[in-house]
């Protein structure tokens, strides 16, 4: 009895905060509502007995990815950049287009009669983290190892992007500090 009630509460929080993400004008407030959305999703996972996923949701999404978002919003200070009318109009157009596409997809999904699968067997009394481990590191070994490659590529990518565009050649090997003075200042 209590589980459906909790599910409803978490779902309501998730929907309301997700709406607030797009309705807020201040980007930091938007980001904070996204954190709330992720946490209530974690609550929904817990109600559905997916404990590990619920905790990982908080650790990775709310605790790591959103921190990066906040860093970018807070310290990059893009809020006051001047935008031309054309950019705004373009963004509005794309936004409406995507919105309608999503709506159409939703309508199509809900019109289709989906057969309810067999009820899930009651979860084992012991943690499902172990079950995930046993599956992930045997049957899904290949995707797991590919993940490490993906992370490696991301690591290389972020270094390349962070260093910015530099003239090829020995300049890249200069000691740090020597190069910074010569770099063109941004328009900030």
């Amino acid at each position: 009895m209590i589980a459906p009630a909790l599910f409803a509460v978490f779902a309501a929080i998730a929907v309301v905060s997700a709406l607030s993400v797009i309705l807020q004008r201040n980007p930091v407030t938007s980001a904070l509502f996204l954190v709330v959305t992720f946490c209530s999703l974690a609550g929904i996972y817990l109600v559905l007995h997916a404990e590990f996923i619920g905790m990982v949701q908080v650790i990775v999404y709310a605790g790591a990815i959103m921190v990066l978002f906040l860093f970018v919003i807070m310290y990059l200070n893009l809020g006051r950049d001047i935008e031309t009318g054309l950019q705004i109009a373009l963004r509005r157009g794309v936004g409406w287009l995507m919105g309608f596409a999503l709506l159409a997809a939703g309508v199509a999904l809900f019109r289709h009669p989906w057969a309810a699968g067999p009820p899930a067997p009651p979860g084992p009394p012991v943690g499902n983290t172990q079950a995930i481990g046993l599956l992930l590191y045997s049957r899904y070994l290949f995707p797991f190892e590919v993940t490490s490659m993906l992370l490696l590529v991301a690591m290389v990518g972020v270094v390349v992007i962070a260093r910015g565009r530099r003239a090829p050649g020995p300049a890249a090997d200069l000691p740090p500090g020597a190069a910074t003075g010569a770099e063109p200042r941004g328009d900030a």
Partner: protein
Amino acid sequence: MREYIPVLLFLLVAFGFAAGTIALSSIIVPLRRNAVKNSAYECGVVPMGDARQRVAIKFYLVAVLFILFDIEAVFLYPWAVAFRQLGLYGLVEMALFIVVLFIGYVYLLKKRALEWE
């Protein structure tokens, strides 16, 4: 499911306590506002410009690298818990995983991405 009810209760009680104490105190305390008192503190000097300025890209780099290594750590927990059943097989595959990421780590060192000057 039931075991998580106390966690939720703790969350609510902590929020209620903190918000309640702050609200109660801000009702009691005197608020004698004036423009100078409410300006940002800059060691007694009139504040100059906006406090929010762009910061070094290093900090974004740290945040992104944190996400990457955090994901690696998340993969380690189910592995550690299931380690005894997985045996040598599990050990070798995790060693491979860590070695691949270690190559990335060495790359970061070589590119001086972890240097703070």
